[in-house]
Each structure stands twice: as structure tokens, then as C-alpha cells.
């Protein structure tokens, strides 16, 4: 009796082990894919320590150690400073306008007409779903110096006497790109705050109403504190993303006239790597960017944990 139970148990265990192996085998192709597409590139960081020229195998390239790191920070230091400045300024402007998302959500939440509200949400989130190429096309049609809609209208109204080059003006390039970012992201970015507002305890609003608190006081004392945690988390994530401006936006809007303002680090990595074919130098730059971003992210996360008792990632 006991023996039978034991064999039954071991048969069950055997079956279970077989099942485990089957699961592992099924997961294997996916694990391999993740390894190939996300982890193998990390090994490519080694190219940053060799004098690698495309076409010559790594084994025949000369090991140069920290040469390219030195080039980045010393010899080409001015380049790096300029590119970093562009990246940081553009990120900073992005953070500076981030309360607009909160304001957008609060105002939309105060809107009573359901149909209108829905319509606003559908239309304002649309730009988020079109590619940067299309964004550029739209802005080109409207802001081009020759035959752009805005220039045509302003000239016709005689508010301008010469067409204004919105897309090729280095003085307003930073501000202009920030506005482009707002146009693309405002409606979408506000959704997360609308969700946060929806999560605020309705009783707080009812209590405020009983107390005779007006619209603005209610917003200030209930809605704003209610979405503050969300705002802080997103703010911290933005801070840790300061060097990641993205490549697409600046590639499509790039032109010789605004080059000195729009060359962000992502663009610079591309230019050095695939336009001038300096693979090793470009690798070092990319590595620098990732290391800084991850370090900042984890520091910020650690601080958030200490202060709020809750991590952000």
C-alpha cells in the first residue's frame, strides 16, 4: 500500500519534471531571441576599446584601451560640450513645460459636455500616433519659408514683410522643437493625469462641496495634491532621461541652419558612427550615454525610495 503510494508519487514527480523541461524548451527560442537582440549588442561595447575599422575583423584591430574615451572628453571635448548642452537644454525645456500636461488634464476634467470632452480627447491624442516623418511633413507644409501656410497668411495680412524661416532659424530652434514636442505629446501625456484624477476619492470632492468650496479652491486643495505623486514620478523619470532626446525628431528637423542647436547626443552618435564611419568613437559615446542614464535612473530611484518609501521603477 505504502510502496504503491510512493511509486505513484515518484511517477507524478517524473511527469512534473518532464512538464518543466517542456516549458523550458518552449521558452528557449524566446530567451535566445532576447539574448541576441538585447544582450549581444552590449558585448559590442568592446569595439570602443579597439581601433576598429569597418571591414577589418576585430581580431586584427589594435587594442587602444581608453583612447576613444580620451578623445571624447579631451580632444573632441568642445564637440561633446556643445552636443551635451543641446541635449540638456532641450530636455530641460521639455521638463519646464511639463506642468502644461497637468493643467491640460485639470481643465479637461472640469469640462462638463461629455461629447465635447470625448472629441477633444480623440483629436488631441492623434498627433502622438503619427510618425516623426509625418510630423515633419505637417510642420513643413505650415512653417516652410517659401509657400508655408503660416508665412502665406502672415504676408497676406501684412503682419510680415519678409517670410520668416521658422524651420531654419537657430535663435528659436530650441523653443520651436519644444513646441513641436508639445503639439505631438500634450493630449496623450495628459491622459495619465486624467487617470490619476479619476482615482481621487470622490468623497473628498463631496466634502469640499458641502463646505462650500469654490471651483478653484477645490482644484487647488484636492485635485492638485491628488495628482502630485504621479507628477513627481514622471518628473524623476524625465530627469533620468535627460540625455535621451531621441533620434527621430532631430534627424527629421535637422538642417544646416539649425545644426548648432539641434545636434543632440543621439544625433551625434549617428553622425560619428554611420556618416563618418568612426565606429569605435561612436560606440564610446553611446556607452557613455547609457551608463550615465542608468546611473541617474537608479540614483533617482534610490532617493525616491528613501524619501517616499516607494520606488519609481
Amino acid at each position, binding site marked *: 500500500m505504502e510502496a504503491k503510494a510512493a511509486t505513484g508519487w515518484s511517477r507524478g514527480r517524473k511527469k512534473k519534471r518532464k512538464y518543466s523541461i517542456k516549458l523550458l524548451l518552449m521558452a528557449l527560442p524566446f530567451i535566445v531571441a*532576447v539574448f541576441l*537582440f538585447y544582450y549581444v*549588442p552590449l558585448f559590442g561595447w568592446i*569595439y570602443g576599446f579597439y581601433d576598429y575599422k569597418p571591414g577589418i575583423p576585430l581580431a586584427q584591430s589594435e587594442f587602444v584601451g581608453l583612447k576613444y574615451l580620451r578623445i571624447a572628453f579631451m580632444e573632441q571635448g568642445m564637440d561633446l560640450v556643445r552636443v551635451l548642452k543641446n541635449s540638456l537644454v532641450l530636455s530641460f525645456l521639455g521638463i519646464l513645460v511639463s506642468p502644461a500636461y497637468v493643467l491640460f488634464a485639470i481643465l479637461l476634467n472640469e469640462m462638463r459636455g461629455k461629447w465635447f470632452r470625448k472629441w477633444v480627447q480623440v483629436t488631441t491624442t492623434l498627433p502622438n500616433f503619427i*510618425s516623426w516623418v509625418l510630423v515633419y511633413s505637417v510642420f513643413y507644409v505650415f512653417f516652410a519659408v517659401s509657400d508655408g501656410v503660416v508665412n502665406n497668411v502672415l504676408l497676406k495680412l501684412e503682419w510680415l514683410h519678409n517670410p520668416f524661416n521658422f524651420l531654419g532659424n537657430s535663435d528659436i530652434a530650441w523653443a520651436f522643437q519644444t513646441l513641436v514636442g508639445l503639439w505631438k505629446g500634450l*493630449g496623450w501625456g495628459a491622459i495619465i493625469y486624467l487617470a490619476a484624477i479619476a482615482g481621487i476619492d470622490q468623497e473628498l470632492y463631496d466634502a469640499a462641496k458641502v463646505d462650500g468650496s469654490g471651483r478653484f479652491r477645490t482644484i487647488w486643495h484636492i485635485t492638485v495634491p491628488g495628482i502630485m505623486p504621479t507628477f513627481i514620478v514622471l518628473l524623476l523619470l524625465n530627469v533620468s532621461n535627460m540625455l535621451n532626446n531621441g533620434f527621430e525628431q532631430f534627424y527629421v528637423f535637422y538642417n544646416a541652419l539649425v545644426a548648432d542647436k539641434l545636434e543632440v547626443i543621439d544625433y551625434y552618435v549617428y553622425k560619428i558612427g554611420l556618416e563618418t564611419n568612426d565606429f569605435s568613437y561612436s*560606440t564610446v559615446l*553611446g556607452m557613455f550615454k547609457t551608463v550615465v542614464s542608468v546611473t541617474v535612473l537608479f540614483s533617482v530611484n534610490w532617493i525616491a525610495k528613501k524619501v517616499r518609501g516607494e520606488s519609481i*521603477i
Partner: protein
Amino acid sequence: MRRERILDISFHVFNYTFFAIFALCCVYPFYYILINSVSDPIMVTKGIYLWPKGFNVTVYQEMLGQRSISVAFGVSLSRAVLGTILTVFSCALFSYIITKKEMPFRKTVYRFVVVTLYLNAGLIPWYLTMKMLGLKNSFLLYILPSVIVGFFVILMKTFIEQIPVALEEAAVVEGAGFFTIFAKIIFPVSLPIIATITVFNAVNQWNSWMDNLFLVNDPNLQTLQLTLLNFLKQSEALAQETTRRMMGNQSAGHQISPQNVKMAITMIVTAPILLIYPFMQKYFVKGIMLGAVKG
């Protein structure tokens, strides 16, 4: 009391005006491009703002008849459809596997995938890896690297874990195997999240062109996005030349300017998004809510 009412009314007036203007800023550009692309080019030069003048779709007929445009449309559509099927199926199956208690090292495997959200080797190491894997100038470059997307796995796994175990147990008692349970229970029950992922991925795929720019120069694998960008970035003279070549069989009387061509291609690239967008909007919203929960 009276002052309060006035304040309230002006608040609403401001609110409605602001949102009406901003919403208009978001849709009017597309409308403007649409009406101009279907108007007579000569009328266009005089300015068209509200409705088409001298309606004609010659430029579209010509564009869609172009081999380069139709090939690019096919490439973009294929990557959106095939890439999405592959990504959604793989992420769903993979997430289901790692929710199974019997799966060895499942926590480690999950972390292994989640970490990819923060890993960024940089352009050149990525470029060299793709080249090494033989994906340069290959259609597979567009769909294989996104076979597993960390963010989607987080969403799927979280969702599958919330499915009541009783549902699965009942099927096991009936003698259903792993794939039967996955296909007949897990997949259908997870449809809300799967729909969200599908929509996100399809839009991403349709909008992608960076991989094309970096690693594909075969004209037969050119995406629609990059075709448009190349046209936009051409110098005016070159654009004239391309336009003339494209419109070669047009009667001389019917002038089509590079501007017309730009607008028409822009509309062709935007159209699929505009068509599915109103129906898919709720899935997008659901996606960001779910994402927000996990942060």
C-alpha cells in the same frame, strides 16, 4: 454670489475656447493637406483653406501607380501585419509560459526580459549585431528584433496572473493540453490586453523607419515613411526632377508641383492611421492606464 457666477462662466468660456483651438490645431493640418492634395494645383497656389477647389485626384492616381510607392506601401503594410502577428503571439505565449509554476527559473527569466527596458547598447553595437546576424538588407530586420518586447511581456504577464486558476483547472480535468489551454482559454480571456498590444505594435511598425535608414538600402525593402522623408528632404530642384519623372506621362497642361506630390504621399502615409484611429482610441487609452499602473 454674482461675482462667482461671472467667474464661473468666464472660466467655462475660456476652457471651451482653449480646447476648441487646440483640438483644431491637431486635426486641421491633416484636413488642410487633404483638401490641398485633391485640388487643382493652380488653385492651390492661390491658397485653399476650407474646402477643395477644382477637385481632382490625378496626383493620387499617379502616385499609387508608381512602383516605388506601391512597393513601399506593401513593405510597410507587411511589416505592420506580419510583425504584429509575430510579436503578439510570441509575447502572449512567452508570458503564459513564465506564469506557470512548473517553469524553471521563471523569476530569473522574467527579470532577464524586464532589464531589456533599461539596456541600450547604443547605435553602433546594435548596428554591428544586426549585421552579424545577417539582417542587413533583409525584411526580417523589421520584424525579428521585436519578437519579444519587454513592456508587452510585463502587461501580458500581469494580466494572465489575474485570470482565475479555476478556469484552467477545469480544462486540465477535461484533459486539455498546454496549447489547447493557451488557445482556447488564455488567449480569448486576455483579448482586452491583446487588443491593446496589437494596436500599439501595429502603429509602431507602421511608423518605423530608423531600422530602414540604418540597415536597408534595397529599394524593394524601402518603407513608406522613409520614402516620404527622402522626398521631403530632397532639394527643390531634385524634387522637381522626381516629380517630372513620376508624372512623365501627364499632359503638359496639367502641372503637378513637388508640393502636390509631398501632400499626396503624406496623406497616403497618414491614411491608415486616420482610418483605424477613431476605433482604436479606447485601446490606446487602456494601454497607457495599464502602463501607468506598472510604471
